[in-house]
């Protein structure tokens, strides 16, 4: 195997890392956005991913809707679930300490997983690729068109969020709420409604993540747990609250895993990625792009 072979191998690891990494990034974005709005970590984020993926497959393959309609309906449906979660579970907590709310979201994730199991059964589902385009070949390495879709979606979401926060009144109000809920409320900003909106947005983002992952992976009621955990790690790595950080963290985690496989061993893949993650957090406790040092409870 000459230099060409080594290059080809290296490139394949990069592509594999980017594919997985963009999946983690899109989930990390959901975590990150909700955290920056509400200071809350929603551990049911992975379950929104699951609902989005399974909902899309059911609507597209099951009900026979055209793909764009299935995507939109599934996203709206999951956003509604996010709204419901906020209204039914989060808002009614009598003493809303962060730790209590986090436990509520863990409970919600178990509930949603159970509901997913009842609705879709315990089987896995697969979805065909969105485009008939086969895999691209770049210098002998294979790149899936679906990975490009995910990357494009990630970038769109990041820039969309930036635009929303900088240019729209609602976005600015939301930012104000994030800085100080009480001060925003005194200024006449309806903070409760904005929290509701934040939940709907992050749930919808989770759903989009799930929809985009469905064609490259298999979807089942319990897919959310692992993906949620990886997405959370990516968000921590990049710096909770920073959307660019979430993308960076996701891609970094994906690449670390791929190179862990390539240069060490696949059974050590997760260990290598997480040891490096710990190392980075040791040097920069707030994550790579984290604005400030996180408070410990």
């Amino acid at each position, binding site marked *: 195997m000459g230099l060409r072979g080594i290059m080809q191998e290296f490139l394949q690891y990069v592509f594999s890392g980017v594919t997985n990494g963009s999946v983690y990034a899109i989930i990390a974005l959901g975590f990150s956005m909700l955290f920056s709005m509400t200071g809350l970590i929603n551990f049911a984020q992975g379950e929104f991913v699951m609902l989005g993926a399974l909902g899309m497959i059911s609507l597209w393959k099951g009900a026979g809707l055209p793909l764009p309609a299935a995507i939109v309906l599934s996203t709206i449906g999951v956003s509604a679930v996010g709204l419901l979660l906020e209204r039914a579970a989060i808002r009614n907590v009598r003493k809303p300490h962060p730790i209590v709310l986090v436990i509520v979201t863990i409970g919600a994730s178990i509930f949603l997983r159970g509901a997913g199991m009842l609705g879709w059964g315990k089987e896995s589902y697969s979805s065909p690729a969105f485009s008939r385009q086969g*895999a691209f070949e770049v210098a002998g390495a294979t790149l899936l068109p679906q990975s490009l879709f995910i990357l494009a979606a990630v970038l769109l979401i990041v820039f969309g969020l930036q635009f929303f926060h900088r240019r729209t009144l609602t976005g600015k109000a939301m930012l104000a709420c994030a800085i100080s809920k009480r001060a925003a409320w005194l200024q006449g900003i309806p903070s409760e409604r904005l929290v509701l909106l934040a939940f709907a947005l992050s749930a919808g983002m989770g759903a989009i993540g799930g929809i985009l992952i469905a064609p490259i992976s298999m979807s089942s009621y319990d897919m959310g747990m692992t993906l949620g955990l990886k997405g959370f790690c990516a968000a921590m790595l990049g710096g909770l609250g920073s959307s660019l950080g979430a993308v960076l963290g996701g891609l970094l985690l994906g690449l670390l895993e791929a190179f862990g496989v390539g240069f060490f061993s696949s059974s050590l893949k997760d260990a290598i990625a997480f040891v490096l993650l710990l190392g980075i957090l040791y040097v920069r406790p707030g994550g790579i792009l984290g604005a400030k040092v996180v408070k410990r409870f």
Partner: protein
Amino acid sequence: MNRTMSLIGKSLAVLLIGLLVVPAAAWCKEPYKIGGLFSVTGPSSFLGDPEKKSLELAIDEINARGGIDGHLLEAVIYDTEGDPGKTNLNASKLMTKDNVIAIIGPSLTPTTLAIVPLAEKQPVPLISCAAGILITEPVKPWVFKTAQSDVLAVAAIYGHMQKKKIKKVGIITVESAYGESGRDQLTAQAPKFGIQVVQAETFGAKDTDMTAQLTKVRSAQPEAVICWGTNPGPAVIARNFQQMGFKIPLYQSHGVASPKFVELAGEAAENIILPAGKILVTDQLPDSDPQKTVLKRYVEQFTGRFKQPVSPFGGYAYDAMMILAKALEGTEGKKDAVRKRIEEVKGLVGVTGTFNFSPQDHNGLGPEAFVMVQIQNGKFKVIDQ
């Protein structure tokens, strides 16, 4: 308050069940109680669910014949949820409270190993439906199993490769007890068939993309790749394998020998070769195959009653019950006699294979329990009789 209510509810349920059973049992001797432990819910429900149904099917079949020596059979089945702790708890319940004569199950290797000491100590005959070789090797007097061992599946794959003159293989296994066991067997048996494992990789059961592992396998230039796992991971591998344009054959384990795999992997499933229980290809078997009649009857009964396609896994529990029924004859339910008689079961044609037990062999199956099949046009085709 709640507790009392549930107690009352349970007692009522027990009474009701008792009332239902009494008329049938009135004219014959005390029923034989058979314990069942299956992962009916949880991640491995794809094993436990058909196993539970098949056990019920087998028991109804035997009862319709009039039971064993005039004793009807009665099943006490608990759900293990695939959790060794719960399995242990339910196993003690079966042994001490329900006083069963024998236990069929559990569905998984870890859950079985968790209760082996219990079954040996009590003692009570245990016929496991799990595949792990550790269950019956070394032989434990009271523990048997009906599922084919990985040893046989690996031998079937390597046998096929030997015929195709494949000498170098890359393997990729799932990070679970099933994958570990497959990996051990694949490495251990390779030299016997003149095969060299040039690269061994693993993947997580929930990983979304395995191209990194496959890249590493490809760089070792194998002549074939063997993937060892249960759905959905192997389907992802099949897709990645196709996308990366591999020009060599892909082998899979019997863990994905079901139409579900073809559904998940889609076009990428084409031409994959794997060992499978004969149940998958019942109608392709020659009439001379001794298992054909048993298989046909089981498939008809199962699909007719439960309105769902058969899986190879239900057969493990069905066979276990048939073996137990044979062993129970003339023992009047004495456990040590039953244990001894299971070892004497010979030539019992079951769904999984033909069982020949002995004091040295508590699995009783030979290599003919597997056939090599290839996926062609989305169907499993026998390629190697």
